[in-house]
């Protein structure tokens, strides 16, 4: 039996078809109940036993050929039909989205978070403390007795004779030791108040206080920790300088400077916790030692965001603060 003419016709038909419906019609024409291939199969019985297997095989091959060819053709047809329909869905994607009002955190919050992120990763707990403080915690417990000249460095707002707005976050040192006992690693971001206002001073500003107390803590630890921190914060290898300074609650005390475009820039104060402060908080200074540091957030924000006037941070012009 010669199937070549039929095969040739079948391939020609498939070549001419261009729609899913046309393909379906072809399927009926060849494989339907009265389809040409179906009829050939039905007529197999009429052949001799010798011819039958060979003819059967040829018919099956032809059927398989049709099915494979029509299957891939169907896929192609469907694909091009979908592509045509896509065109109808076309929109102008350059039209604006609705309601594009963004929210963001205040630059101060972001700066505090950047600082806290570093110290959290080193295991410091983030503490909090009252903003209206007693003279005891703000001064006396920190080795700054009444009439001490160091009190002149703090232009203090008073609420009553013995109560004030904290002038630094250092009171949290004592409160944290009392609350948690040693060894201890804490930092405390927060608002502080001093009666001072110009381009670089606002009567309220923010500080972060850090305190680490353990056995065998030394000055080298302080230098390493703060150097690492400053490199993290400014994302580069900074030239960092520690120089002697004075805080009544640390001994030795130091200021930390970083090398800026214009020269050395004072960035934070620090030191080894004064034995009197440890004693006042009930910690044995012979067994434990520690370091403490404090830094001004506005100053860090100013450097990080390359801005000049600190007062802008609290004017809350949304156009300004939403940039961070």
């Amino acid at each position, binding site marked *: 039996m010669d199937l070549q003419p039929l095969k040739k016709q079948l391939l020609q038909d498939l070549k001419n078809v261009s729609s899913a419906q046309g393909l379906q019609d072809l399927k009926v024409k060849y494989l339907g109940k009265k389809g040409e291939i179906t009829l050939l199969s039905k007529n197999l019985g009429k052949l001799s036993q010798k011819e039958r297997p060979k003819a059967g095989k040829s018919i099956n091959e032809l059927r398989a050929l049709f099915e494979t060819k029509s299957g891939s053709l169907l896929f192609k047809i469907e694909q091009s039909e979908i592509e045509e329909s896509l065109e109808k869905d076309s929109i102008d994607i350059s039209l*604006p*989205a*609705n*309601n594009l009002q*963004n*929210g*963001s*955190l*205040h630059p101060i*919050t972001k700066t505090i*978070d950047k600082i806290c992120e570093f110290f959290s990763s*080193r295991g410091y707990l*983030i*503490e*909090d403390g009252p*903003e*209206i403080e007693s003279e005891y915690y703000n001064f006396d417990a920190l080795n700054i007795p009444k*009439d*001490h*000249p*160091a009190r002149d*460095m703090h232009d203090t*707002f*008073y*609420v009553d004779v013995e109560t004030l707005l904290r002038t630094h976050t250092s009171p949290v040192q004592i409160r944290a030791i009392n609350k948690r006992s040693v060894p*201890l690693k804490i930092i405390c*971001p927060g608002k502080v*108040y001093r009666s*001072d*206002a110009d381009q670089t001073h*606002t*009567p*309220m500003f923010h500080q972060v206080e850090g305190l*680490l107390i*353990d056995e*065998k*803590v*030394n*000055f*080298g*630890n302080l*230098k*390493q920790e703060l150097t690492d921190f400053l490199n993290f914060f400014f994302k580069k290898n900074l030239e960092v300088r*520690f*120089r*002697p*300074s*004075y805080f009544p609650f640390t*001994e*030795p*005390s130091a*200021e930390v400077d970083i090398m800026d475009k214009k020269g050395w820039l004072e960035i934070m104060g620090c030191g*080894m916790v004064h*034995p009197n402060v440890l004693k006042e908080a009930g910690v044995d200074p012979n067994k434990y030692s520690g370091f403490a540091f404090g830094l001004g957030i506005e100053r860090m924000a100013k450097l990080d965001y390359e801005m000049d006037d600190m007062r802008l941070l*609290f*004017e*809350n*012009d*949304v156009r300004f*603060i939403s940039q961070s």
Partner: protein
Amino acid sequence: MKILKSHLEEKIGKKKNISKLAEQLTMLGLEVDSVDSLKKDYCIDIDLTPNRGDCFSVLGVAREIAADDCIKLKKEKPLKVNLSGKPITNVIIKAYDACPKYCYSEISNLSLKDKNDNVKKLPEFINYRLEIAGINSINPIVDILNYVMLDIGQPMHAFDKNKIDGDIQVRFAKSNEKIILLDKQKINTSQDCLLISDEKKPIALAGVMGSYDSSVDLETNSIILESAFFSPRSIRGKGRRFGIQTDASQRYERGVDFELQRKALLFAISLIHEHIGGVYSDIKEISSSKSLPTRKLINLSISTLNNKLGTSLSITEVKKILTFLEISSSSGPGDPLVKLKPPSHRFDLEIEADIIEEVARLVGYDKLPLEKVKTSFQEFSKTDYQNTLDLKKFIASQNFQEVINYSFVDDRLQEKLGLTKGMIKIQNPINEKLNSMRTSLLPGLLNNLTSNSKRGASYLKIFEEGKVFSKIKKISELNRFAGIIYDQEKKKGWRESGSYNFFSQKEFILKLLNFSNLQKITLKPSSSKLLHPKVSADIFKAGKKIGSFGEIHPIILKKANLKKSFFYFELDSLELFNEKKVELIEPSKYPQVQRDLAFTVPEYLIFKDIESEIIKNSGNNLINVKLFDLFKGGDLPKNHKSLAFRITWQSKKETLDDLYIESIVKEIAKNLKDNFKVELRG
């Protein structure tokens, strides 16, 4: 303190490179604020820390440089003036603790003017050094005394002997004793003020300023020169109390070398002798050795020092450093402790840590080795800081801009807004607009709204997290979250219109509470005086009010001079930090069944009551009840509304059959009718 480089070099006895000198001073802890280049010299401005009273003179600064350079300062030249005869005036000290030592001498036959009636001139270098230090020229006597103070650090005073009645006393003031000071300020002293007085009147507020009436003038011909040691404690705070800070008081309250008085007096006399003239009495010193400061022995353990600094200094190295600082040391061979005695000019060395700092300073902070921290394990716990930050980030993600306002506001604004309950006033505010602690976050946010809308903002969503303060019996500080939603944009964009309303805000608040793991809350009409009574709600958590939200009260709007309304919320921060134990439940495999039911409801009934009644009668398999339609008018009876609910059920054990659902629907309808006169529609 401003000093000349040449003056400092004269004391040290060698020349210095200016930039190296400035760097050296700064690294010693004498921070150089600025260096001004002059014609032939440099003016060095040193920012002294309050502990270093000993450096409050050119000599003091020179001592530091010398110690750092390991050299010894040369001795001052001996005096060549004839002193003869006891002073006529007696000085009696009645308060030795406050004034342990008082040296004085009398000078007579003085004339501050020359033959031509011109005021005698001091050498140019003295005038220039004083001018650079910012010390005004008064007259040759006072100028010399100021120069001695600048040069070696001893504050001195001269009284016009002819203006003094009888003997002098050093004593504490009687109550309400008045004195007119040199600057003509009249002050009322109190009993803790140390005075110098004659037999009739006070002639100086000791260590701070002399009286006007006893002062030296150009006609003065005899004087009493005072060079005293007043204890820092007796001087501290006095200047500040009367708003006077003098060069003398600043030095006395930090501590003046108590072995310097006689030397300073001799120095002053020699300068007066050289440039003015006069006849000099002997120097008389009245003192009580037991009241003078003592320099207690400090035990230093070299191993403690090395442990604290991370160094490995030898005992010899440490002793060498201390010797140049004039700290004497003694220790037997093999003795682990060195006994140290600080010099009389150092008031800041009392304990071992102070000595360790001295060694660190002289070694150089920069030379101390860095070392990784090795600390004990500390248990982690999430604190309010992290919770607050999480919530701030959530609110910002809902398009709010965070603001930070001062914690103090204008008390008149708080009064206007009715926010004065427990208001705390600041006794010494920086200005009247910042004179009271905020009792709510509203005043600050209102200011932000006003200023931003003045700049043209017609849309503003801002929030703040911070403390509010009040005092009712005792002071309390509460952390709050608050925010303003101001939306006056008629058309939001090319696709959407419709303005912000109570339900937009309610959606936000509920999302926020959900973020805070607070699902079980109740809303009630708000009692807040800040909010519109009909368009606001209070939020309750287990019966406790934790905040409010809604439209601002029209009265507040009027008081704040605002024309257009806005929405406001204020919530207690701490109530928003909740831990939630979560159990993940596998959803049911059986199909859900839904029914839509609409009811005719009298206008006065609220949604919540109807919803509760539905839930109550919906059986165990209820999944949720959702309001999907609300309308009034149409064919509804007067004063009625239609509420349409989609109710969904699902069982964990079986497919629910229609009969079961029908029976529930009947139960719902019956109860609503019986209890609320609410009819099922259709």
